[in-house]
């Protein structure tokens, strides 16, 4: 088990109900995709927020990554919808 800081934005944040939290990850969570699957087991809010896994974007320590990216020694992992700035 290890602890990471998770941050959420836009409708991911609204559906989960918090903007950030510290979560203990089991050793079976290796990639960003593993993290999403794990979070979906944490309750209805998480399941609703992350229902359409393929649209969820992930950043590790403030850099965009694909779902198959290993989390490595990540300190901060962000989950959010496709971006709509500009």
């Amino acid at each position, binding site marked *: 088990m290890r602890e990471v800081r998770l941050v959420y*934005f*836009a409708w991911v944040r609204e559906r989960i109900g918090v903007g950030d939290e510290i979560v203990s990850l089991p050793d079976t969570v290796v990639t960003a995709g593993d993290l999403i699957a794990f979070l979906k087991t944490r309750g209805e809010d998480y399941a609703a927020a992350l229902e359409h896994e393929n649209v969820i974007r992930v950043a590790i320590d*403030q850099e965009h990554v694909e779902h198959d990216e290993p989390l490595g020694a990540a300190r901060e992992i962000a989950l959010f*919808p496709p*971006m*709509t*700035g*500009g």
Partner: protein
Amino acid sequence: MASDSAPLSAPAPVTVRVQAEDFDTAAEIESLSAGRTDIGAVVTFSGLCREEKGVLSALELEHYPGMAEAEIRRICEEAITRFDLQGATAIHRFGRIDPGARIVLVIAASTHRQAAFDGASFIMDYLKTAAPFWKKEHLKDGTARGWVSAQDADDTARERWARG
């Protein structure tokens, strides 16, 4: 990325700001080009809060502090290397934005006009698809219409810059 192919001349200035306040377009152009005679072309892009049917009260812009600035800076530095720009500025607001108000400003300066146009267009295309900002629409009747959906057209616009 930028470091391998950086030009030999003095580094081109990059200004990036993410802020709640409005910005002054003319002052930003001036700040990029004042006192320089090597710039032949300056292209600016201003993105405004568009109100289509009289029902929008305001946009609310959420961002990822830290990563937003870092991504925009990375995009600007890539544009400088790729188009040999002599300077780039990008300012993006967050928080509540009223209809007609400014949201984003991008400035690209170059010796030649096509590079300045391409640089500003490239920065905008990447900024829309890679910078962590999200827009929520608030309606005049007090309800929230919800989060703006990402446009496929924006991904297409970005893909045209892809290199094989």
